[in-house]
């Protein structure tokens, strides 16, 4: 089993979730109000009220094959708007 961590602007959340749903992931978790810095820009909490939005951190536990299925779509979304995606190992309890 794999764990996929996605971090990107919450403004793109709908697009990413659509990608996840299309791949039929068994589930996902979203944590909003994340901030941070990437190679491209700084995202701070104090700008949330402007509508610029903070980041969302999405966690998906799923099989490797699902990740392979989504890879291109997710990369596409993240390359347009920025954000990172990392995979690690995870074992169900």
């Amino acid at each position, binding site marked *: 089993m794999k764990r996929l961590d996605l971090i990107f602007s919450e403004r793109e959340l709908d697009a990413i979730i659509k990608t996840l749903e299309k791949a039929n992931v068994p589930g996902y978790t979203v944590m909003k109000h994340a901030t941070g810095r990437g190679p491209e820009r700084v995202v701070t909490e*104090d*700008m949330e009220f*402007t*509508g*610029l939005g903070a980041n969302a951190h999405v966690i998906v536990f799923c099989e490797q094959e699902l990740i392979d299925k989504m890879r291109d779509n997710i990369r596409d979304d993240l390359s347009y708007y920025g954000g990172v995606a990392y995979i690690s190992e995870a074992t169900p309890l």
Partner: protein
Amino acid sequence: MEINPILQNVLAPPVLFFLIGAISVLFKSDLEIPAPLPKLFSLYLLLAIGFKGGIEIQKSGFTDQVLPTLSAAILMSLVIPLIGFLILRFKFDVFNSAAIAAAYGSISAVTFISAESFLESQKIAFDGFMVGALALMESPAIIVGLLLVKFAAPKNRPKSRKMHLSAILHESLLNGSVYLLLSSLIVGFLTASSNPSGIEKMEPFTGQLFYGAECFFLLDMGIVAAQRLPRLKKAGSFLIGFAIFMPLFNAFIGVFVARFLSLGPGNALLFVVLCASASYLAVPAAMRMTVPEAKSSYYISTTLGLTFPFNIVLGIPIYMSLVNTIIPLSPL
């Protein structure tokens, strides 16, 4: 006791709270207004401005001045981004130029209400329909900015997508803050037409509370603006100059248009302030979505870190004296 109008402006509670916020950052106080509290105040202010504006428009009706003023307002929000774009192109690429220019063509509602407070404290009359101008100036500048990107961007725009006209209209009209202001204006108008007792019952919320909520929000804006300022330094002196020069330039055009429209001094100031102010709500949110190539720190730091404080603290009294100088001149 006669005091200097700039000092008098600075000594009003909203401006003082703004300064307190800014100073807290300077002194590294840990004063903080955590999210989403600023959002609460920004939603409240937009709702209240719209609602009260709708009532005023219904009350005053469509006088002779209304239509020409609103048309001129829209015109200004179309022209200013074009001028801004031409200036910015000396230094920036199409994406950044268009995004920054759009912000300056659009307006800042909080600058507008600060100008209203200033007029009230000076006991200068103004008309409620000016809120209509405020509401109408938000979207056109966004549209111009996006059209500039659409047509001026290199044909092989690498990340290009979603730049259809429908997307442009969607971003400019259905942006959360534009939508809330416009629809609250309609609610105010409908309430005033058909349900006047509703106005009274809303008054404590949208009316009496307004000034205090404005102060609280400006406290936060002081913090946010002061945190932006150092980033502006990184953006370079061209952009710093632009953030001061552009509002003054727009104010200058604005005051002549106001004179041409024969606006009284109160309405004229509001018109000038709309021209001179720059958007940090609607435009950045729209540009972030549609022009990701533009650096958000550019259009945020300029509008919020410099133009906004400048207008709130110094701009408004300066524009007032501009209005008092230019408007009474013999006819053009």
